[in-house]
């Protein structure tokens, strides 16, 4: 579970994709991803649209376009979330989606990137790309300006927020369109930490990729290696032992606690409550030392292996985990009680960044963001992997989307994770060897697999294709932040500048994960480019 081989793709003609997609959406309302796969032998590009209902069923719709005529209609009109996913494919593969609101814009790749270079095509070599990118750094940054007639030129101010800003922990740019102090439009310009991991993955063995994908994120690193392992285990047809499954679950839940607690601390930081930040991060050290104890590493655990885990964990260590977790729970409950009874904080986060379930579903949101509106969409329940089906736990939901509810969902999820870890340690089979006989993957037989897991930030999606070789043919990664960014940019509208850090943070954005991909705003009917010099001139004239 958590993964499945793609066996029954529904093939359709490119021109009828909109019709098929809108029919599919009525029973599978959540578009997970648009995956493109280049087949250099057949000289064609296959596009796989993966849809899900909210109960665990998946539907893969596939269509094929020839390499020399890469055009097909966009489904963004029926599934707004598709606009980002299509844009990603368009920049990386050179496919044109007719009717996509982003058409003609550069979202993910640098502005100076040549128009005819499409990095993920199989015949593009990594060395050539390195040359292109090296020459690219010299260009001046271009600034997107919305020329929408909704705003009169005198009344709006364009405020660049980032890429380097005290309120952003990672480089990312948001152009805020302000009318007075109120935000009327937001244009995210992302891609500052794009590392081309999907391309690199094609040039390395499956085993080496396991360590590569772990480095996508410095917070939720284990879940990336776990989902990749799930996919490769399905391709190799191996099964891990029960103890390995339990250990993986424990590590993943510890990681969820550390990620959520880190986020709660940052919420304090961004609302100006720095003692909260320090208290809660001190508490988090307990969890970090447990990760160190179990795996030997605090951040990038390098703990998982195809068919098991890399090393066994002694009973003594497990008892230490149980003890420390109990201490942590006590301190955590007390601290949260204190923090959440402090009215200035609660007042600050209540009722800002509001959205509802329908809004979240339409823009494809996942994780605590969608659960805060009451939709119980959690991969651990919907499609249990690891040992989640043997554990008794609840999916935490909120009463309506705003920063306060999102915070409460995360706070309660930490307690739920503690509960899961405790049960895992009780039920774990003790006399079993979780380490597989061989760690090396070798040649992997042909096949396509999709995998989904619940990362701390929401549903994570991988597509892995093997083609009888030591290296994967294609690895597609859709991280939760990418799914949530459209909603985050949308809910900023109507709030004031001082709310920006808090609202953007509420989705717990992890830009590095997302930046194998780029996104822009959605009201871009008439977005145009203004270069830096022109903007400077204009601003002088205005003075």
């Amino acid at each position, binding site marked *: 579970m958590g993964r499945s081989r793609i066996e029954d793709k529904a093939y359709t003609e490119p021109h009828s994709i909109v019709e098929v997609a809108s029919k599919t959406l009525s029973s599978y309302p959540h578009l997970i991803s648009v995956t493109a796969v280049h087949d250099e032998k057949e000289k064609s590009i296959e596009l796989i649209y993966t849809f899900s209902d909210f109960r665990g069923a998946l539907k893969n719709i596939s269509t094929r376009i020839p390499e020399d005529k890469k055009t097909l209609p966009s489904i963004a009109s029926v599934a707004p979330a598709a606009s980002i996913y299509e844009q990603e494919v368009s920049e990386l593969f050179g496919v044109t989606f007719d009717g996509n609101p982003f058409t003609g814009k550069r979202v993910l790749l640098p502005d100076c990137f040549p128009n005819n270079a499409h990095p993920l095509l199989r015949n593009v070599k990594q060395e050539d790309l390195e040359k292109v990118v090296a020459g690219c750094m010299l260009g001046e940054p271009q600034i997107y300006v919305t020329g929408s007639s909704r705003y009169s030129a005198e009344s709006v101010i364009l405020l660049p927020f980032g890429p380097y800003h005290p309120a952003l922990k990672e480089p990312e740019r948001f152009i805020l369109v302000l009318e007075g102090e109120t935000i009327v439009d937001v244009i995210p310009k992302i891609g500052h930490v794009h590392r081309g991991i999907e391309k690199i993955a094609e040039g*390395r*063995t499956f*085993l*080496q990729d*396991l*360590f*590569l994908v772990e480095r996508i994120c410095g917070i939720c690193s284990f879940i990336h290696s776990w989902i990749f392992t799930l996919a490769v285990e399905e391709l190799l047809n191996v099964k891990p032992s029960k103890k390995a499954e339990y250990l993986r679950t424990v590590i993943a839940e510890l990681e969820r606690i550390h990620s959520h607690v880190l986020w709660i601390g940052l919420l304090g930081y961004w609302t100006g409550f720095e*003692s909260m930040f320090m*208290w809660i991060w*001190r508490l988090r*050290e307990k969890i970090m030392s447990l990760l*160190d*104890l179990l*795996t*030997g*590493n605090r951040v*990038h655990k*390098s703990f998982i292996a195809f068919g098991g885990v*890399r090393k066994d964990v002694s009973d003594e260590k497990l008892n230490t985990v149980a003890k420390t977790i109990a201490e942590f729970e006590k301190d955590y409950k007390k601290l949260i*009680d*204190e923090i959440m*009874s*402090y*009215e200035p904080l609660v007042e600050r986060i209540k009722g800002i960044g509001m959205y509802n379930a329908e809004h979240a579903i339409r823009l494809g949101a996942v994780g605590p963001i969608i659960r805060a509106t009451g939709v119980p969409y959690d991969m651990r329940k919907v499609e249990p992997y690891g040992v989640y089906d043997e554990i008794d736990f609840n999916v935490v939901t909120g009463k309506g989307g705003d920063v306060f509810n999102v915070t409460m969902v995360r706070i309660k999820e930490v307690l739920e994770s503690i509960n899961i870890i405790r049960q895992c340690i009780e039920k774990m089979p003790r006399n079993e060897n979780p380490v597989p006989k061989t*760690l*090396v993957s070798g040649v992997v037989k042909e096949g396509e697999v999709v995998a989904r897991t619940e990362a701390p930030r929401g549903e994570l999606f991988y597509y892995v294709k093997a083609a009888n070789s030591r290296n994967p043919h294609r690895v597609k990664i859709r991280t939760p932040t990418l799914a949530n960014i459209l909603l985050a940019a949308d809910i900023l509208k109507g709030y004031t500048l001082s709310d920006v850090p808090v609202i953007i943070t509420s989705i717990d954005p992890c830009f590095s994960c997302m930046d194998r991909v780029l996104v822009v705003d959605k009201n871009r009917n008439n977005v145009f480019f203004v270069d830096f010099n022109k903007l400077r001139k204009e601003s002088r004239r205005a003075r």
Partner: protein
Amino acid sequence: MAQLTMLKEVVKSLFSKPSTEPLAEVEKGVFSPYSRGYPVLIPEKCTGCSLCAMNCPSNAITMKIVGEKNVGGRTLPVRRPEFNYFKCIYCGLCAQVCQFNAIEMRRELVILRPGSKC
């Protein structure tokens, strides 16, 4: 009420010992009691099969020719892995895949400088 509980926390923090550890303490021991350490070759055990270099996730291992051997009348180069500790991610995979236990993960703390060998 909230202010009071918070005040308690503040007073407690004033009198408890710092949460951070002084560096001098760390330098005395190993990096962490659970760390995997860093890979060191035991040359006598190595057969030069290159399995470690093929699987190293960060390509930190290069197979260096260190001599020649005579097999059935033909001279073949003898290869041994060399670690680049600035590329290494200290995952311990090389030690685990080696069939001859020729790589040891060592834990004593040493200061590594460019080109330094252990």
